[in-house]
């Protein structure tokens, strides 16, 4: 046990990678699922012990291939990393038992092993982005996760899934290429690719920032914003989420955009530092405007959407708006709110999309009209929907309330009090779109497709309920989520560690 402790950062990426390769090699659906389950359950253990290690003895660094940074690739884990690692691997682990029946119902028999292989590859990519301390390595992992994501989306049975995957491929590649351009400019200026080293070299001199540095910041911001679907760079997201297999949607909604936001945080605060990011360019104001626009426009679109899966995708866009709002505030409370919301939103969106996965499993449709009265037939599942829905709204006693509270405090501290009203007002929009589904599902007589539905089998029900309970748990016990988030925010604002 002691022998592998120092190698945990590498194992965090290598284990899912090997899992992906083995499941592609074996080509059997059930074996691949078992492998994916095994890997998904190992990952949180690794992430948790990394987090403990960071909490007790500070950031750890791992030199890949024994080459010391800044020449070699360094895997560097600090508090923020470790937190995101735990989030991604934890959500994946909870969701994994759900996958078997859901994937068996939604993906062709001979493609199931590919599905799990791509899922594990995507997991490896996402964890890789989070764990690595090398800017170019982030690009490689970004593309690993993106390419596997395109395949995951295209595996949906609906032919529109193909178009959605293609559109995401175009947008995602443009985003990743913008990112490489940005990193290239930084490399030309600093001669380094190690994030810490770049930050040190940019250092004080960057305060009189030269044009390439500002251009790099612009390219990187736009590139990553495409990946995290910041309004108005979001057009790929609703269709991709709506037509992908349900499990893939839930996994991507909970993790992929969150990891992109992590990269943005890393760039703004660790690489460039507040001085360049927020003082020399109006990044804060632009982000603020786009975030508020996302909160309102996406929520309005969600209200008029008839496909519930798409509705939740629009809701995701709005919620991403809250997270970027926290980033644009750039003070401790606001940033804490952003990071906590990143965590909370992952948990509650995973719960909501899994509920839809269960509905698809039972009735094969996610049209709002088909859900009439389904609450009486699938009571436990829809109860989870109500709980997670309340969390999206931000009702007190749920996780969503905690993050919105921090955001509001951050806005007050900054003196932008109208923002508090905007946060409240956009939450009201969430009441409308969540309420619409709840009304149809619970207060109408079951008819048509919903007539014969019943709660899904335990392997699907349990992940849903665990996530729903987690949204309440993190509404009361904020030590784990908000506590670590505020420490991470503090560290980010302090600049280079």
């Amino acid at each position, binding site marked *: 046990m002691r*022998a592998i402790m120092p190698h945990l950062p590498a*194992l965090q990426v*290598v284990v899912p990678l090997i899992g992906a*390769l083995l499941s592609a090699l074996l080509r059997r659906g059930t074996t691949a699922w078992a492998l994916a389950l095994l890997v998904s359950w190992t990952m949180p253990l690794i992430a948790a012990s990394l987090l403990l290690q960071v909490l007790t003895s500070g950031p750890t660094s*791992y*030199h*890949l*291939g024994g080459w010391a940074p800044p020449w070699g690739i360094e895997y560097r884990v600090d508090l923020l990393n470790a937190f995101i690692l735990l989030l991604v691997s934890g959500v994946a682990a909870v969701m994994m038992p759900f996958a078997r029946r859901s994937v068996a119902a939604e993906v062709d028999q001979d493609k199931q092993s590919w599905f799990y292989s791509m899922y594990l590859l995507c997991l490896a990519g996402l964890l890789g982005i989070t764990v690595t301390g090398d800017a170019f390595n982030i690009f490689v992992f970004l593309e690993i996760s993106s390419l596997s994501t395109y395949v995951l989306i295209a595996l949906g049975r609906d032919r529109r899934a193909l178009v959605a995957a293609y559109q995401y491929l175009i947008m995602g590649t443009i985003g990743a290429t913008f990112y490489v351009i940005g990193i290239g400019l930084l490399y030309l200026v600093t001669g380094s690719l190690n994030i810490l080293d770049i930050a040190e070299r940019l250092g004080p001199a960057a305060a009189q920032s030269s044009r390439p540095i500002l251009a790099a910041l612009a390219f990187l911001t736009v590139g990553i914003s495409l990946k995290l679907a910041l309004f108005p760079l979001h057009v790929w997201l609703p269709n991709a989420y709506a037509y992908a297999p349900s499990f893939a949607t839930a996994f991507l909604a909970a993790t992929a955009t969150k990891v992109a936001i992590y990269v943005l945080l890393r760039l703004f605060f660790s690489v460039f530092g507040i001085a360049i990011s927020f003082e020399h360019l109006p990044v804060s104001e632009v982000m603020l405007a786009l975030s508020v626009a996302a909160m309102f426009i996406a929520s309005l679109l969600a209200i008029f959407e008839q496909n519930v899966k798409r509705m939740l995708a629009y809701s995701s866009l709005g919620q991403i708006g809250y997270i970027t709002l926290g980033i644009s505030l750039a003070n401790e409370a606001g940033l804490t709110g952003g990071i906590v919301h990143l965590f909370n939103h992952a948990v509650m969106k995973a719960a909501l999309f899994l509920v839809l996965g269960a509905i698809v499993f039972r009735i094969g449709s996610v049209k709002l009209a088909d859900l009439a009265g389904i609450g009486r037939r699938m009571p436990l599942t829809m109860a989870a929907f109500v709980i997670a829905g309340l969390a999206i709204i931000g009702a007190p006693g749920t996780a969503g309330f905690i993050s919105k509270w921090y955001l509001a405090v951050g806005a007050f501290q900054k003196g932008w009090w109208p923002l508090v009203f905007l946060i409240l007002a956009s939450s009201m929009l969430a009441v409308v779109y969540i309420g619409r589904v709840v009304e149809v599902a619970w207060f109408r007589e079951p008819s048509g497709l919903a007539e014969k539905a019943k709660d899904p089998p335990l392997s699907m029900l349990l992940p849903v309920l665990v996530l729903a309970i987690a949204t309440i748990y993190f509404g009361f016990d904020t030590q784990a989520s908000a506590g670590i988030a505020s420490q991470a925010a503090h560290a980010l604002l302090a600049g280079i560690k």
Partner: protein
Amino acid sequence: MKLDLILRIGTKLLLPFILLFALYVQFHGDFGPGGGFQAGVITAGMVILYALIFGVKAAKRIAPQGLVERMVPLGVLIYAGTGIAGLWLGSNYLDYSRLARDAPYGHELGIFAVELGVLITVAGTMTAIFYAFVDRGR
């Protein structure tokens, strides 16, 4: 049938040399230009040439689709496994220093294994892509 006699005989004569050249590129990669990528593409080129002249069916007899599709993950597995071997011997992931009695030999051995993995994956991928597109129209 008669018209493409030259093509058939010529191809049959060429095939071993293409493979030999691929192996040369692969193993001479230490000292000159070359390596797994190029060798893999040349190997796949051999299979594709064979398929063009003798038909996909015949090509699938010498390089079955199942094998080709499994070569893709297998090569990466060899690559990742080389990294794990370093881990096993007590150094960092992908550190080849301890694979042999001293660091330079270890590195040579490590790169050799890695390049072998690259050869397998690239050859597999190229052939698999070819098969995938050829199988479409029918």
